[in-house]
């Protein structure tokens, strides 16, 4: 046991942390009484903007887990101007995301050509039953309210080409 200072310095570190926690507070957050808000880009839940979706199925195809279930049908919408042809539009019947399978990878959001899917930092949607983790069209539409604005980019960044 030659040099003792190492042992004493170690005691000093723990005592210092004790005093720092006692005076300046802990590094922890007392969830659920206080909650930290996650960063803007945080991948919490996926929201669906139904109006933009054309059921092109790109998201369902690109999901690594195949957790998106889409069903749609084609309808004839009235022509945009007088004397034109009726247009064929896709109407969404079913758009479910199964959050029990979702890996939160974001490929679906990235791949959507019509900007119908968005990330939202909401994370408090745990359910006692796994079946309730299948969010349907209506619920995904509700998440749209929680979608934040995209953050400003760092200096030197070029804007997105979209």
């Amino acid at each position, binding site marked *: 046991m030659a040099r003792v200072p190492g*042992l004493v310095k170690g005691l000093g570190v*723990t005592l210092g942390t004790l005093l720092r926690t006692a005076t300046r507070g802990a590094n922890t957050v007392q969830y659920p009484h206080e909650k930290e808000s996650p960063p803007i880009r*945080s991948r919490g839940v996926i929201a669906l903007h139904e109006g933009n979706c054309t059921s092109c199925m790109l998201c369902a195809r690109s999901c*690594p887990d195949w957790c998106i279930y889409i069903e749609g049908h084609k309808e004839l919408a009235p022509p945009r101007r007088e004397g034109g042809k009726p247009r064929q539009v896709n109407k969404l019947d079913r758009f479910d995301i199964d959050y029990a399978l979702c890996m939160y*990878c974001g490929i679906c959001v990235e*791949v959507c050509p019509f900007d119908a899917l968005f990330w939202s930092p909401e994370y408090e949607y745990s359910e006692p039953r796994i079946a309730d983790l299948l969010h349907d069209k209506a619920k995904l539409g509700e998440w749209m309210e929680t979608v934040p604005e995209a953050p400003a*980019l760092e200096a030197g960044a*070029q804007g997105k080409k979209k």
Partner: protein
Amino acid sequence: MTLLGDRERLSYIAAQAADSRLNVELETEGMTLNIGPQHPATHGTLRIIARLDGEQVVWAEPSCGYMHRGYEKLAEVRTYPQVTTLVNRIDWLGSFANEVPFILAAEKLMGVEAPPRAQYIRTILFELSRIANVSLFLGDLGVQLGAITPVFLAFRDREYVLNLIEAATGGRFHPNFDRIGGLKDDLPAGWVDETRSVTKKLRRFCDEIEDLLFGNEIFQSRTRGIGVIPRDVALQYGLSGANLRASGVDWDLRRDHDLPMAWKHAQWKVWTHPDGDSFARCWVRLQEVREATRIVDQLLDAIPAGPVMAKVPKIIKVPEGEAWVSTENPLGEMGYYVVSRGDLGPFRVKIRSASFNNISIVPWLLRGVYVPDIVTILASLYFILGDIDR
């Protein structure tokens, strides 16, 4: 509950019979001990079958595979972005580092190079993953040896790094940020300043751990001279990363391989240690964390402006060919051998993970070692089960 196969059953019986033949002079019986797969000391579901004579190990063998998730098979039926997502989860503590060699291999096949800004940000995130991974190692080291406080300090300071990664990529543990041709997004405003303050905090954490753990005489007497791996043995067993550098081999792929990343734009040092014992491995990793913070600081000052994604088609089909890229990951050398047939996804991906080769030395290393030293040696070798089993 797995069923024991015939072979396993026979080897168990043989082991028990061999036990009774041990140490004939004292007529003592050996004991076959299963360390794992559920055990606090192994970083996951690793099983080490050890035959003990009293407190000494006579024979040891790691039995891995409890966490095999079939990455290489999965990769055969996934597209490149999907494989990137999966590959995050191999070494889950420093997950951005897993994506990089795969994406670099795909870019090599495509003949595309990411723009300079993307290269810098990739390198910064890579080094941040290294910091996140190895700072947890420093804390976990304390727990394996009985000091329960350092791990909380490690988690506390690692939070800052994870928050940074989350602010930039959206995911703390699984960023899924690398794309063929560059990165998914650019950095949010204020990220550079935030990162600078975080690197300062991490350097302070390294100093704290040095005082609390490394300077502790008890820690030193537990790790010095334990599990010595001589230089040539380390090279023969294919060790990589800090394990190799702690045995005195000057080997760092960041410096030696010429990859389109930004390490060459920063001044940094490769840390080696001549001893090759457990203390050396832990010490080298501590220095690597410090060095990583310095690399990040230098690169932050020099990020070039510009696009973050090269000109690549929206739907990427990587042309035919084969490519191998390996990088200096936090755990060691991680490499991907990507075989492409011109599809949306790879035809075959072979993953060379660092920990699988690192634990190949365990039978050689654990012979003649005391039981408490098993834990010290395993802790200092530092493997992650996801990395061993993939």
